């Protein structure tokens, strides 16, 4: 059965013989006699109810243009061949005489070096002796996620009016002659007004019926209308285009250069020189008017796991001015020019292991381990087959860091999908008070980790902090799966690290890494001949070979008894060998 549905699904455009009350479905290769175009109500697909004949003919017969726009299609893959199949039926009228026209056109679309080459394969149809000559004008072209095929007819005889409707199917051909349907759409050409407006005005119906307001006068107060059911659905826009969320730029406002504080990069020898100078009488005589303690002008000392951007050359810390004389340290140090630093950890390619559903949840699990940010689960369905990148934005002044996990695949380029925070600075105590604070903060972090319960079940979700600081542990709860034979779905997710910020992070791995838990499939020999693999297609049984198991069938044309038919369907659902 071949029909053309509007997007709502309820109504269809059918070809309808003029002299016969039955409705004939026009197939792409089947031409009928004189036909008209009708709108039919498809509420019951088995018995379509013709509603009204389409009589809205265009006056413009010099050039009938139909632009076929597909639904969003995936990006072209140059290893495949694509094909446009357009089936058009139309009726043209000269005076009071109406004539049918139907044809099939195929157009091969090949992608060669990212350039589309279009070759018209064949046009099968019958001109019915008229002057209609419909062709693909120029090439099929791509605009964003859609494909357009522009059909024209410029040979129509003057005085002819045309009303037409067509459907354009877009396929990706495979080497064995089969194909994937990758997009199709109802075409609305210049000669066909199968529109909501036309439907409303001529048939009194709407393709996309709005939800009607209940009539308060007709409401039965005793009736429960919560279960109201009506036609609807199928009106999604099928738009899976995505915005690439890029890693933001480093902030431009920085504490460095303000003059209030200065951050210096030092080596061990320089630190020792500064420490020695602090307690000399020469320096103290100068600064005693500014500070009561030499360490008051040293705000902090820390170990940073990355070297920030520096000014060229060495500079002398100037800690004040006494009686017109700058008080400087004698040890030149390198000045940090930007308190923000980006660390690019690079990328890794996450290739599918099986090339099947086993590469995705709930079978495979993926964790990413980020220095200073801990371990986190990644959504394997999201990242599989992609290139994963990790970049850090670090604030070397406060130690705060954000780790960006990006995904690059066919649909997106370096799109940020995950962001995790941490702290990279390991403070070095320079007074008894700062040492005490460091110890307290580390102890608090460990206590917070112990107090955090591991949640979630095997297979995903944020597990949170580890059970104990720096150690892995097992989650508390496990979800049972309905897949009795598949152990992967009942295995818990193991937390492999705990809290790893600040000083603890310095002791841990300094490069990110991912851990993949890949299931080991148990596959009997020649399994597909005994059980088959999931198919989920609608197909004529005669075109299939080998073991076949069906979901459903509408038996038609059998002359056997009902009991035989029941047995037949039962056998088909259990699996037969064609």
């Amino acid at each position, binding site marked *: 059965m071949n029909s053309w549905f509007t997007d709502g699904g309820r109504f269809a455009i059918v070809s309808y013989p003029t002299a016969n009350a039955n409705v004939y479905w026009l197939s792409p290769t089947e031409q009928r006699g004189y036909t008209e175009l009708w709108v039919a109500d498809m509420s019951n697909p088995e018995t379509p109810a013709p509603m009204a004949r389409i009589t809205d003919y265009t006056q413009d017969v010099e050039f009938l243009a139909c632009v076929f726009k597909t639904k969003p299609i995936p990006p072209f893959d140059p290893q495949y061949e694509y094909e446009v199949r357009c089936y058009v039926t139309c009726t043209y009228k000269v005076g009071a005489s109406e004539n049918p026209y139907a044809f099939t056109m195929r157009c091969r679309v090949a992608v060669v070096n990212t350039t589309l080459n279009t070759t018209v394969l064949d046009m099968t149809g019958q001109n019915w002796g008229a002057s209609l000559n419909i062709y693909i004008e120029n090439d099929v072209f791509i605009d964003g996620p859609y494909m357009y095929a522009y059909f024209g007819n410029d040979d129509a005889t003057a005085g002819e009016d045309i009303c037409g409707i067509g459907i354009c199917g877009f396929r990706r051909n495979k080497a064995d002659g089969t194909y994937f349907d990758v997009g199709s759409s109802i075409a609305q050409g210049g000669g066909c007004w199968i529109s909501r407006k036309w439907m409303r005005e001529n048939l009194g119906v709407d393709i996309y019926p709005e939800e009607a307001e209940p009539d308060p006068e007709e409401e039965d107060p005793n009736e429960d209308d919560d279960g109201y059911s009506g036609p609807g659905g199928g009106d999604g826009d099928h738009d899976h285009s995505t915005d690439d969320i890029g890693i933001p730029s480093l902030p431009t406002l920085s504490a460095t250069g303000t003059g209030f*504080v200065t951050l*210096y990069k030092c080596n061990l020898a320089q*630190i020792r020189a500064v420490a020695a100078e602090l307690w000399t009488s020469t320096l103290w005589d100068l600064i005693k008017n500014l500070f009561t303690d030499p360490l008051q*002008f040293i*705000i*902090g000392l*820390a*170990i*940073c*796991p*990355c*070297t920030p951007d520096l000014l060229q050359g060495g*500079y*002398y810390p*100037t*800690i004040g001015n006494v009686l017109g004389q700058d008080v400087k340290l004698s040890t030149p140090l390198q*000045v*940090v020019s930007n308190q923000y630093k980006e*660390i690019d*950890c690079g990328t*890794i390619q996450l290739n599918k292991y099986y090339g099947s*559903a*086993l590469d*995705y949840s709930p079978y495979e699990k993926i964790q990413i381990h980020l220095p200073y940010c801990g371990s986190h689960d990644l959504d394997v369905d999201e990242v599989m087959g992609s290139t994963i990148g990790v970049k850090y934005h670090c604030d070397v002044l406060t130690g705060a860091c954000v780790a960006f996990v990006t995904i690059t695949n066919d649909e997106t380029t370096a799109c940020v999908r995950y962001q995790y925070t941490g702290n*990279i600075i390991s403070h070095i105590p320079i007074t008894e008070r700062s040492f005490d604070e460091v110890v307290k903060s580390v102890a608090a972090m460990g206590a917070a980790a112990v107090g955090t319960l591991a949640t979630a079940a095997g297979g995903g979700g944020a597990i949170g902090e580890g059970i104990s600081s720096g150690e892995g542990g097992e989650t508390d709860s496990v979800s049972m799966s309905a*897949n009795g*034979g*598949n*152990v*992967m779905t009942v*295995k818990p997710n193991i937390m492999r690290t705990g809290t790893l910020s600040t000083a603890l992070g310095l002791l841990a791995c*300094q*490069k990110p*890494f*991912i*851990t*993949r838990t*890949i*299931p*080991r499939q148990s596959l009997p020999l020649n399994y*597909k001949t005994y059980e*088959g*693999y*999931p198919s*989920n*297609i*609608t*197909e*004529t049984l005669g075109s299939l070979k*080998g*073991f076949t*198991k069906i*979901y459903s*069938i*509408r038996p*038609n044309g059998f002359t056997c*008894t009902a009991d*035989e038919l029941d047995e037949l369907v039962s*056998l088909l659902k259990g699996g037969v*060998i064609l």
Partner: protein
Amino acid sequence: MTIQLYQTISPPERVTKTLNAVGAAMTGTIKEESSIIDPIIKISAAFLPEANYLYINEFKRYYYINNVICDYDGIFEIHAHVDVLMSNAAVLRKQKAVVAKQQNRFNLYLNDSDYRTYSDPYVITKEFPTGFTDPCYLMLMVGDYSSSS
């Protein structure tokens, strides 16, 4: 009625079976009150036919032979059950259906509750090329800096 006996080694699930005729077509009588789905046919033969399959011309159907009962010398009572697949093969192949599983036309990215895995998975790690590899000391001081001592 006219019946033809066959020997088939094709699996019962196969729609079109490979048949080897056993003898020529013969005449049999259907036992009273037999159905066309589970007929009981009596034939006269010198010895037990080595057949497990038959075709009844009048019923236009193929049958499995479920049982053969020997009444008395020379008379065999064949209990049969219709093979709905072979009998309706031509019409069956014209039907369209939603296919759940198939030997050749399939998509491995469709999940299947029948997938089975061993209890010991592969656990692999992949390290990123770079990380934090250049540690340093940082000292924060009050005030500014000067290029001259």
